[in-house]
């Protein structure tokens, strides 16, 4: 009896030991930095000299900085342009890949998935060349056929946003397609068969069977895509360079530039805090919306 109790204690101790690395590492490199951000946001610090307390000054600074508002606006615009089409096209591609009519499914699937294997840096460099400002850049050359003058893709307001959105779209659409496809494969084929017998068109099948049955997957994709969009950084940095023009600067890029280009770690932390609350609000809205959709479904 006593022995087994001892043994239990011993097992528990071993278990705590086994799980401790995560908690220790997270405390040091995850939780503490996050809390420390709140502290640092009230100090002036250039990364080298001593920190000086400045009260709300950092927040006053970023809230009176027009570029900060640009960064928020850009994050949302690029997030929407890059993400929303992805979900629609992803569902359609997955539906096509799931079709019983086709062969070479694996080949198509592999090709559509390929962009995801590429690093974001590589994607941004490649698209930077395809969308180069020169007359001989690929897109500008295509546009010249339609009599459209060369566009300065990484300078002009909308071209910058559109190019970055296309990068995001291209890299992630295949990944989301595969996730939608996995979700679709769990939908029983009998449902489609029954719908076909009832004479449902393909559109009706997508609208009335695929999308409702796919709701959990769609929720998951929307969640991850939103969080990803709010963290957008690499594409603008590589495409626009270190000075991160205001046409394409994002929130994370803003705080990175503050810290590592201007050595203003205090205002960068203040920006991180604002970003933190924006993420909480957006996640809250996301959760609320999904719950509401679930409830209306149940009410019916």
């Amino acid at each position, binding site marked *: 009896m006593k022995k087994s109790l001892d043994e239990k204690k011993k097992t528990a101790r071993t278990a705590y030991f086994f799980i401790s*690395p995560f908690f220790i590492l997270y405390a040091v490199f995850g939780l503490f930095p996050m809390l420390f951000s709140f502290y640092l946001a009230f100090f002036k610090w250039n990364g080298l000299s001593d920190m000086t307390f400045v009260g709300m000054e950092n927040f006053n600074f970023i809230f009176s900085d027009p570029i900060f508002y640009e960064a928020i606006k850009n994050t949302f615009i690029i997030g929407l342009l890059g993400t929303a089409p992805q979900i629609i096209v992803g569902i359609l591609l997955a539906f096509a890949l799931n079709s019983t009519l086709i062969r070479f499914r694996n080949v198509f699937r592999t090709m559509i998935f390929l962009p995801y294997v590429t*690093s974001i840096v590589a994607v941004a460099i490649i698209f930077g060349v395809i969308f180069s400002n020169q007359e001989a850049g690929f897109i500008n050359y295509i546009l010249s056929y339609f009599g459209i003058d060369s566009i300065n893709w990484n300078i002009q307001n909308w071209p910058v946003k559109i190019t970055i959105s296309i990068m995001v779209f291209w890299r992630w659409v295949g990944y989301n397609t595969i996730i939608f496809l996995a979700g679709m494969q769990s939908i029983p084929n009998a449902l489609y068969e029954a719908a076909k017998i009832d004479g449902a068109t393909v559109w009706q099948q997508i609208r009335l069977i695929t999308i409702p049955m796919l709701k959990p997957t769609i929720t998951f994709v929307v969640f991850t895509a939103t969080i990803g969009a709010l963290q957008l950084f690499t594409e603008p940095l590589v495409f626009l360079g270190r000075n991160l023009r205001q046409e394409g600067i994002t929130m994370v890029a803003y*705080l990175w530039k503050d810290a590592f280009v201007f050595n203003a770690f205090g205002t960068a932390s203040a920006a991180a805090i604002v970003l933190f609350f924006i993420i909480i609000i957006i996640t809250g809205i996301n959760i609320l919306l999904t719950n509401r959709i679930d409830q209306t479904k149940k009410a019916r």
Partner: protein
Amino acid sequence: MSKSENHKTKTTIQKAVVYLFLTVGSLLSLFPFYWMFTMATRTNREINSFPPPFTPGADLVGNFQKVLDNMDFFGSMANSLFVSTSITVGVLFLCSLAGYSFAKLEFKGKKFLFSVILITMMIPPQLGLIPQYYIMTQLQWINTFQAVIVPGLINAFGIFWMRQYIQDAVPDELIEAAKIDGCSTFRIYWNIVAPTVLPAFATLGIIVFMQAWNDFLWPLTVLREPSMHTLQVALRTLNDARQMDYGMIMSGTFWATVPLIVIFLMFNKLFIQSLSEGAVKS
């Protein structure tokens, strides 16, 4: 008769639409790769001429030579390989240990601690970027690989993933039998659990390696010395050079992208399965 024929043509049209859609999608997926390769084989003069060249040229080797002159390509590739491999091995070990504990061992606060791990998954790590950097300066880890590797070992998803797998794949009877034989908990992990979950190691390993290989923001922040740059950071430096030589830039990008693509094409089924399972499970 005519009705079935009607049905047949309808199916044919549907088939054609599906094929067309998938073909266009695939071509749009592949085109940037093709363009990258084309540019990587052309001289800067050819690239800047109007119209631009649409087919590969003869400058493949010459462009790569220029890459080698401008960056330490193989050095940064070795750095990437070292960092990514270390992170992957470490994550597999730590996450399977923790996953085993959560799946099979009894201890107080198990449920609570596990939900803490799940919550950390929802918090973007970038929010602590500045203090993380500060910690690294205090530890004097700037320009060292451990600055990337040690925080890279934090992987909540990995623990979640290993727990799910171990719960289903390792029978309790086997563990009980080993206990009666006097095996220690770690011994059971090493001799029974780890060999049983090899498929989960493969899956998680792919996900973690790819993320580590492609990671950019954090290595950019802490690896400032060019000799310490990972491939992604070094590529950006190449792209930032004042003299824009597209042939050279595309060549560097091409050769940096090829290894992962080759590995992907070799194991594409496992890759796709891993990543979609990973997403669907969470």
